[in-house]
């Protein structure tokens, strides 16, 4: 155990840190020896999660405010995170909002808010960090997307579209930055046992937020660029993606 090892590992910025998936990911990063920077809106919850990480993982935790709905918030977050010590080794975007599809069909501002909270917010945060990582020739960027982004469905297509855009944004950055030593990953969970799904009752292939959070943190070092979690979703989505549109439009999937 060299104390230096801790410093050289650097810190990881987790955006959307009050999500239970993010909490598990942060704990896994802490276990791997990273310091963590947690960002979200809910201060009271951030304080609780930070205290828990400090006690259970005995790790350095920094809290930063972030609100995707506030102009400039994402850019400022990235700037501060890049200045903190130990130096930033990676950033994870977990922010997301399923929103209310029916409301989004009537109210365009709500639709745009969903897009902001799932996609455009990530542009603000990731762009300066990606550039810094590119210059340094190291670092990782991970975004939590969703299987919902693999195909637009009547039930949640605004959310799905935002996730699809997020996937494409990450894929483009990957092509640009992978050759510069920056790892760019997307994790696409299926159903996760969180507040989002609790009311729906028992669901197939339901994953615990702990498992998904661990998959998110492991994506940083793993070989896969796009991770479906739990694994079988890769095959389910392969089929769903390949259904011809004329068939798909008639189904209720």
């Amino acid at each position: 155990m060299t104390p230096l090892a801790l410093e050289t590992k650097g810190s990881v910025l987790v955006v959307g840190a009050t999500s239970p998936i993010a909490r598990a990911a942060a704990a896994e990063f802490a276990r791997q020896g990273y310091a963590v920077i947690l960002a979200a809106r809910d201060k009271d919850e951030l304080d609780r999660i930070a205290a828990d990480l400090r006690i259970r993982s005995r790790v350095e935790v920094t809290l930063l405010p972030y609100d995707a709905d506030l102009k400039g918030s994402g850019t400022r977050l990235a700037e501060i995170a890049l200045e903190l010590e130990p130096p930033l080794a990676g950033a994870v975007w977990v922010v997301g909002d399923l929103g209310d599809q029916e409301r989004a069909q009537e109210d365009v501002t709500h639709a745009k808010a969903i897009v902001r909270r799932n996609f455009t917010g990530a542009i603000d945060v990731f762009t300066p960090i990606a550039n810094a990582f590119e210059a340094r020739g190291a670092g990782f960027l991970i975004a939590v997307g969703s299987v919902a982004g693999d195909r637009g469905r009547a039930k949640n297509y605004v959310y799905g579209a935002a996730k699809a855009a997020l996937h494409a944004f990450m894929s483009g950055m990957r092509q640009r930055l992978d050759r510069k030593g920056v790892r760019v990953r997307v994790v696409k969970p299926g159903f996760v046992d969180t507040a989002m799904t609790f009311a729906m009752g028992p669901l197939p292939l339901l994953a615990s937020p702990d498992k998904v959070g661990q998959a998110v943190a492991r994506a940083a070092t793993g070989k896969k660029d796009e991770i479906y979690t739990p694994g079988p979703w890769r095959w389910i989505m392969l089929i769903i993606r390949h259904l011809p549109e004329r068939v798909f439009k008639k189904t209720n999937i």
Partner: protein
Amino acid sequence: MKPLDNKRPGRAVDQLESWGRYPRVPARLFRPERMRDFHAGEGPSLARGLGRSYGDAALLTDGDVVLSERLDRCLEFNPEAGVLRAEAGLSLDALIRAFVPQGWFVPVTPGTAFCTLGGCVAANVHGKNHHRDGSFRQGVTSLEMLSADGSVRDLTPADGDDFEFAFGGMGLTGMIREVELQLRPITTSMMMVKHSVAGNLPELMAQMDDEARDDHYSVAWVDLLARGERAGRGVLMTGHHAEINELPMRYAAHPETLLTDRPGRARPFPFEAPTWLLSPGNLRLFNSMYHKWQGRKGTFFTPLRTFFHPLDAIRNWNRMYGKPGFVQYQFVVPFESGREAVTEAISRLNAAQASSFLAVLKRMGASDGGPLSFPMPGYTLALDIPLREGVIDLLNNLDALVADHGGRVYLAKDSALRPDTFRRMYPDWERFVNHKRQVDPDGRWQSDLARRLELV
């Protein structure tokens, strides 16, 4: 049932059950992820931990049941003093995982680690050290409670009844949000254990009463199925946290392993067992083997998980009792007439052929906590009874016996007690009801247990 609103995503369930899987009732479940959302629903509401109570204490027919399990954060820890402040949904399992490697253990633990701090306070649980250390109350220095009027209060022993009545309050005085606990320092994660065999009940009880044999933790397993001269034979199991210098060299040679926690991987009970599995013949065979096997062990070292939570190695072992479910019956009777009462209870159980192989006998120490807190000085016997026709009548018959001897049954395991017998067992019940009326005038916090015992 009312439709659920979008803002507070809840789930309507038809058959909510606790560990005994009896009774099963319809309810609305809420599982807040953030502390702010941990509060009552619109109507009658109840906090629920991991549902390790056996009967109807954590059930509320057609009401709003609010799960604490996602509110499990450690908030403050003083590594010098070993004082931990955590959210009420923290399980003992998670606590042990995090703190045993740092040299700290829970001051009191029930026979399972899959229960929450909130549940341990609400039932004022006891462990194998009750005769020496008292109940869960003894380790708790402060509580944060949400009252029926929505206010959040930090309570300490200086707050008198508001604090004390939460212990054994069965969730009826408010929702416990945070618990501050004095942990127990340990130098190794091993237990030094001694098993001694007793050929019958008087012998077993004499061993338990013998101070020379006593240790920090003490519990006896009793074979309820043995008849005649062997009736009530058993194995007394005593132990303490092993100190480094007690351990054999092979442990001490690897100091980094002294405080490892070995939770093991819980294996699921594979199926809902057919009821013949636990036929009296099979149980008798099992008990005979168990008696020989455990008795032969003598003095040995074992990891603390194995000592305190042996059943946690099998997830869902409650399915072993098959579809109808089971009840766990636990009572305590004062020492004076304890032998007589325990002997009589065992013979009534045998006469009713209420087969059980998990029977545990133990000495309890002083009472603490609120008026509905279970532990009191005396002998306590706990056993599983598979549910079938006549079992509730049998329990009511035993309840009367226990009350006649000045004893009581454990509400966290009960599903049969009647209000009149309950009042005989818990003579201070009126103080509890008055207190509840004062802190919860509209009867916000309810449970099926509270309704059955006419506490609400």
